[in-house]
């Protein structure tokens, strides 16, 4: 499938925050990342999507200096892969790692010092309040629930007000209220003009916050571009017929149809671009199958994602 990189040719002068070139990571029995090239511009909220094992966390691990790539390169702010770049990045990778015997406050002091901050008390108070952990600031990290740990990890990314955020599954372990809180914070940060890179499975959330995305599978880049471009891949319709099974069988042989998915007694069908649903209706009736319902379905990232994954 052709890889779209339309935003690269946009006529806006944009600053490239992250450039990944032909990245490859090979382990003993598997290739986690193969020939990955991605470009993230300043101010984008860039989603890294893919099923488990697609290489998202490996890629993030490499660009954050934790893993060594087998081949290929990456460059932050045009400054290569130097360690000092990481001081300008607020990153959350996999699980939150803190000192269990230290309090939330003391843990953040450690992070602040590592980032080279000399005055941090005011800032720590501010971000603890923002993630709703100020009341528990003196409690030891080991007493925290999963949601609280996740929120502290997010707080630690914000501590020196970096220009770039790299978040690996930021809503992991959060209840719906927590997810909404995180979403609000991410949107607020994005509005300040920061660049955010998010890796996630929760496509619904990605769609709500991201401006651009890259879709990975088995270590390879399937598609990249703005959310809008990715979503205009195809159209979706919900079809209903008395005999769903026969309908599904018939649709399987239609070249215009992408995937067929049963949802709540109806069939969600993706059609190629420029295909009019009435054409489908006509073809079906000529086969003796009559639809009892046909309606346009709102495009969303999940169905697009499934479509793209399936195609490849």
């Amino acid at each position, binding site marked *: 499938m052709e890889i779209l990189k339309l935003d690269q040719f946009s006529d806006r002068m944009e600053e490239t925050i992250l450039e990944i070139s032909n990245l490859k990571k090979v382990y003993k029995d598997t290739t986690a990342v193969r020939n990955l090239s991605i470009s993230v511009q300043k101010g984008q909220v860039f989603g890294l999507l893919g099923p488990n094992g697609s290489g998202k966390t490996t890629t993030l691990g490499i660009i954050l200096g*934790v*893993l060594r790539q087998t081949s290929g390169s990456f460059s932050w702010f045009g400054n290569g892969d130097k*360690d000092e770049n990481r001081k300008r990045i607020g990153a959350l990778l996999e699980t939150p*790692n*803190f000192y269990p015997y230290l309090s939330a406050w*003391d843990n953040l002091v450690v*992070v602040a010092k*590592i980032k080279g901050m000399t005055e941090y008390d005011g800032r720590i108070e501010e971000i603890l309040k923002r993630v709703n952990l100020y009341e528990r600031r003196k409690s030891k990290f080991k007493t925290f629930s999963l949601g609280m740990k996740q929120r502290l990890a997010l707080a630690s990314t914000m501590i020196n007000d970096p220009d770039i955020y790299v978040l690996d599954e930021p809503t992991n372990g959060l209840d719906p209220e927590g997810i909404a809180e995180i979403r609000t914070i991410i949107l607020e940060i994005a509005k300040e003009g920061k660049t955010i890179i998010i890796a996630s499975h929760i496509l619904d959330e990605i769609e709500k916050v991201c401006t651009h995305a890259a879709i990975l599978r088995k270590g390879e880049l399937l598609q990249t571009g703005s959310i809008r471009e990715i979503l205009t891949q195809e159209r979706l319709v919900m079809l209903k017929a008395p005999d769903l099974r026969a309908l599904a069988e018939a649709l399987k042989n239609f070249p215009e149809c992408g995937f067929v998915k049963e949802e709540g007694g109806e069939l969600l069908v993706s059609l190629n671009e420029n295909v009019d649903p009435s054409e489908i209706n006509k073809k079906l009736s000529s086969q003796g199958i009559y639809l009892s319902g046909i309606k346009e379905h709102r495009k969303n990232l999940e169905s697009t994602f499934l479509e793209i994954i399936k195609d490849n």
Partner: protein
Amino acid sequence: MRQLLSIEYSKLKSLNAIKIILIIYMIIVPLFMYVASEFLYGILFPALKQPQPGVEPGTFVFNYPQIWEFPEMLKYTFYCASYFHVLVSLILVIIVSNEFSFRTAKQNIIDGMTKKQLIFSKLAILLFLSVFVTLYNCLLALVLGLINSDTVNLYENSHYIFVFFFQSFCYFSIALFFVTVIRHTAMSLVTVIVFPVVDFIAGKIVPPMIYVFFPLNIFSTLTPSPIRKEILQLEESQSKQKILELELWQLIGLSAAFVLILYFVSYISLKKRDL
């Protein structure tokens, strides 16, 4: 470097295990000095005064060393303290293995530390511990010597202060090596504790000429027992074999070489492996 020390201080100030182990150390060393002294004066020295088997009477003359008097006081203090280097090195093992098991070493890197800074931070802790034990034992020797001694002679054996500092650095480096390579908290602790025992047992099996060059033997010889020369002399007379005895500068050189190899291997291990 100051920044690294500041970071480590923030990490460790509420780790109570450190304070507890150091307090145990500060109590146990003077305790051991008194108990050992009782044993030496009560049993061992009188035994050595008697005619020894396999030795012609009159060829081996034993004079009681004045371990509680000033010139010998420092050496005796350091000798007793050197038995407990392993105890203090456990602190280093706990600190470093924690960073692996909490995955905070990885997090430090993500937050912006370089691998070199990570290594230097731990080295800084190691040096701090060496300074601590050296200063403490100097103080101890001073106080106990003033209590027990009539004459005050502070200068004669003072070069031993550096020797003891160097020796503690060596012992702690072995612990750092093991924990860097093994990473697992329990296994590292076990290895650091059992290693001296293995060395000791090996010493009973291996011929003396080879045992002279065993690393832990070299380290411990840096602070010899008060009656080491006499014991060696006795063993030589009994076995009719000359046992090689290394000079102080040779011991220091060999120790330094060994420790450098350890650091080299640790560094390679840290660089090659993922965190």
